[in-house]
């Protein structure tokens, strides 16, 4: 066994921070707990710096079960950025809602650790380990708002559904192990590349179960039923965290396992994936239209975006995967920002998340409303914002790979999505009433989070070159 511990560094850094926060929580006074957020941010910043310094390395450890390459680092950056934004936007929120701070921040960090492991996992068992670390932490985060019945319900639902999905994944892993004799992705890939007569049929069953498990995790139709309830019930910053980071982590693992190492099986799941992508986009968008609550609408919109991301997986190859990574980077700030704005509307412990609560926001809080408009337009795919460049690359990769029909369906779907994204803007600018002035969570940190997300939305839309380059080198590090 080789002894290099460097590949563990980013994950270990976050884990360490989590432990520090958790322990410190026991010893410091109630009014000093705000410090914990800063410690978390510091840890995340250090981890981000490490990820930048390690960029370009390609090193495996523990018998190649964990692989630190640009792919893992790219996702690590996304997770860290989202986790940091989550911490920033919850600083005031957790006080208002009476959520215990120390546990909240350390759970966010534990979940982030799990995600980092997922993105770096080169072994199905290690991947599973990361997945569980993340999932268990997020189950708890969902239910942390203990005085809210919805929150508890969401946690229960999420836990049951998640456990169910985990069963599928584990069973799939077992079958693949049975067929190939290994859980290591390199060895599985080597086995599949060997010329031989026939693969055992349960290999395909294993692959399909894996697919179902991933479908649950990213919320692809028809495995999406838990998403709206869980997203709605969870504390809003956690919802943002889930909608972006958890989804990105699932896609990271999906991309590494299914697109690269198991790519010899591509032709076998091309059809189910296509169906999944089309159904996810279309049904997500159609259901989002009829939602009365913005938070719920965003939950369905995140389903629809999973559908666009699936197009990237279907397209595969260099372009598909690059655009998948890039799309995740463009989707992140807009979705997170939107949830942050909903966080902002919370009044003490009463959530204000219906369309009606946005009425007149454009005149009461012009900059918040402007940021929200940016997020909505970016999600709808409006140039020159991030969402447009992301969609553009996804659809372009679909056409290159010969899936012109998917690109057309995708474009029509984004047209459909304009209906509900625009409704938020209509409410903010063209209606009167809504939330009274004093009922906003006035926290400079929350405003900072919103501002950063808005800046990223514009930056990725106007100057996408650097991030695209990163996505490409992240993808090519898989080979």
């Amino acid at each position: 066994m080789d002894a290099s511990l460097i590949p563990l560094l980013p994950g270990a850094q976050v884990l360490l921070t989590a432990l520090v926060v958790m322990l410190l929580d026991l010893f410091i006074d109630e009014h000093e707990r705000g410090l914990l957020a800063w410690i978390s941010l510091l840890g995340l910043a250090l981890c981000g710096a490490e990820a930048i310094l390690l960029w370009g390395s390609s090193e495996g450890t523990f018998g190649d079960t964990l692989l630190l390459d640009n792919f893992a680092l790219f996702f690590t950056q996304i997770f860290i950025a989202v986790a940091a934004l989550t911490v920033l936007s919850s600083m005031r929120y957790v006080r208002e809602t009476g959520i215990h701070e120390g546990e909240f921040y350390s759970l966010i960090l534990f979940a982030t650790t799990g995600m980092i492991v997922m993105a770096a996992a080169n072994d199905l068992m290690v991947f599973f380990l990361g997945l569980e670390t993340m999932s268990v932490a997020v189950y708890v985060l969902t239910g942390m708002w203990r005085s809210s019945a919805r929150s508890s319900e969401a946690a229960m639902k999420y836990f049951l559904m998640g456990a169910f999905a985990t069963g599928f994944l584990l069973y799939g892993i077992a079958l693949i192990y049975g067929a190939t004799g290994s859980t290591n992705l390199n060895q599985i890939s080597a086995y599949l590349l060997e010329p031989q007569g026939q693969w055992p049929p349960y290999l395909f069953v294993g692959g399909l179960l894996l697919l179902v498990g991933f479908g649950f995790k990213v919320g692809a139709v028809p495995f999406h039923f838990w998403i709206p309830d869980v997203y709605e019930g969870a504390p809003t910053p956690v919802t943002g965290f889930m909608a972006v980071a958890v989804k990105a982590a699932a896609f990271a693992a999906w991309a590494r396992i299914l697109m690269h190492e198991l790519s010899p099986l591509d032709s076998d799941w091309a059809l189910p994936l296509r169906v999944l992508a089309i159904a996810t986009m279309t049904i997500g968008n159609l259901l989002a239209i009829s939602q009365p609550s913005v938070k719920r609408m965003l939950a369905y919109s995140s389903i629809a975006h999973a559908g666009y991301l699936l197009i990237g997986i279907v397209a595969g190859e260099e372009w598909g995967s690059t655009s998948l990574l890039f799309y995740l980077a463009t989707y992140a700030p807009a979705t997170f920002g939107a949830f942050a704005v909903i966080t902002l509307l919370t009044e003490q412990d009463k959530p204000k998340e219906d369309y009606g609560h946005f009425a007149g926001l454009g005149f009461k809080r012009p900059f918040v409303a402007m940021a929200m408009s940016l997020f909505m337009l970016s999600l709808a795919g409006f140039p020159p914002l991030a969402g447009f460049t992301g969609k553009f690359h996804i659809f372009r990769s679909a056409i290159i790979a010969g899936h012109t029909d998917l690109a057309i369906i995708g474009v029509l779907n984004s047209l459909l999505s304009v209906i509900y994204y625009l409704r938020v803007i209509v409410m903010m600018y063209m209606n009167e009433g809504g939330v009274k002035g004093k009922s906003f969570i006035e926290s400079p940190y929350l405003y900072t989070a919103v501002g950063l997300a808005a800046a990223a939305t514009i930056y990725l839309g106007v100057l996408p070159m650097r991030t695209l380059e990163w996505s490409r080198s992240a993808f090519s590090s898989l080979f």
Partner: protein
Amino acid sequence: MEHNVLTYMIFIPLAGAVVVLLLPSQSYHLIRWVSAAVTVPPLLMASWLYANFDTTTVGFQFVQKAAWIPAYNIQYFVGVDGVSISMVLLTALLSFLCIFASFGIDKAVKGYFALFLLLDAGMMGVFCALDFFLFYIFWEVMLLPMYFLIGIWGGPRREYAAIKFFLYTLFGSVLMLLAILALYFNTNPHTFDMTVMMAQAKNYSTQSLPFWPFNELRWGFQHVVWMAMFIGFAIKIPAFPFHTWLPDAHVEAPTAISVILAGVLLKMGTYGILRINYPMLPVATADMAYWLLGALGAWNIIYGALCAMAQTDLKKLVAYSSVSHMGYVMLGMASFTTQGINGAVLQMFNHGTITAMLFLLVGVIYDRAHHRNIEGFGGLAAVMPVYTGITALAFFASMGLPGLSGFISEVLVLLGVWQKYPGLAILGATGVILTAGYLLWTVQRVYLGPTNEKYKTIPEIDGREIFTLVPLGAIVILVGVYPSVVLDLLRTSLDNLNQIIIPHLPS
């Protein structure tokens, strides 16, 4: 010739929008005057462009090119030729005047002027962009402020009008995006450079596609792309049956926005067809022009005029008259004769100035009477003689009275069309009569006859309003008397466009 004057023209308004956003929101005067100041440099630059434009060369002038997203061959590439320069002039002029026409806005002033300047930047960008990706981005950037300007500062049904406008246009731009991607993937090497696409026009397949309905229609790749682009542009023109957003948007929009909408945005439809469909898809253009540009244009003229005649709302009447007048542009474009196509682009310019006047004039009366019901006035000439005089000028220009600009372009269009399709020319000429009908009837009902008691003391048009109208009136007369001031700019480029299409015309 490398030059960055166009870049300044696009980005000065954008920078101005940011500056306006940073001003204190209560200092209305400051915001108004800063916005007005921001639109001056583009206007001066446009005049400079006009003076320095070489009317003898075919190619693009004042071009500037820089790599933007090199991985996909996306460039920042701007330049003007004869087709676009007249539109750039029009945009710079109308933006400047409309800032003054917006001085009466008193709701969320800062937001209004910032969005207006953003809109200005988008419009300039559309007319200057020579990279398809850039073109699309400006096209969409322009859509948003328009949506807000109608939706926030509009009349009672503003939400409905704004959303209708937005969804129609967005539907068109999505089709356009697909067509852009299709062209991109059929250009070697893949690029969004419009000039390369024009040079490769013969490579875009015209082979009939093997499946229904394209095999019946004998449509090839080029025809399908043409159709997608055309629908996108037809919505903007707006051509029947995609015109229904226009009356709603115009009626609800504030005056200055109506002016921009009719004066500049509608031109983007026909401009796009000339810039993209003609040189890039010449075979399809030749095949489709008679029905989808010529016949549809003639139908637009008559249908728009008949609708205008039936209106009781003065603004809606002017809106439908736009539908009718844009028909002349389509008709002239379809003729592929020198007169026809020059007349068409001149009509774009003239319609821009004349309709701008009409909407400004409607705005003047609306600000005073707070309604626009044609039957609700009467005898205004006695109370507001100056106003009535200017209105008469605009109305006569609109109906094509000799000596005013509308006459020149309509006659050129009809002359050109007559050589090719006499039937359509007759229909077009009928439109002239209908136009005279509804405009004269309106003059009679609103300005002549006994003065309505309610408006005996209505104040005369004021200095600011006259200031916005006089430049336009002067241009209307100047172009009417000496059309070469505009036609000289257009001729070389348009003849070149004709030469591209003519070999492909079905004999």
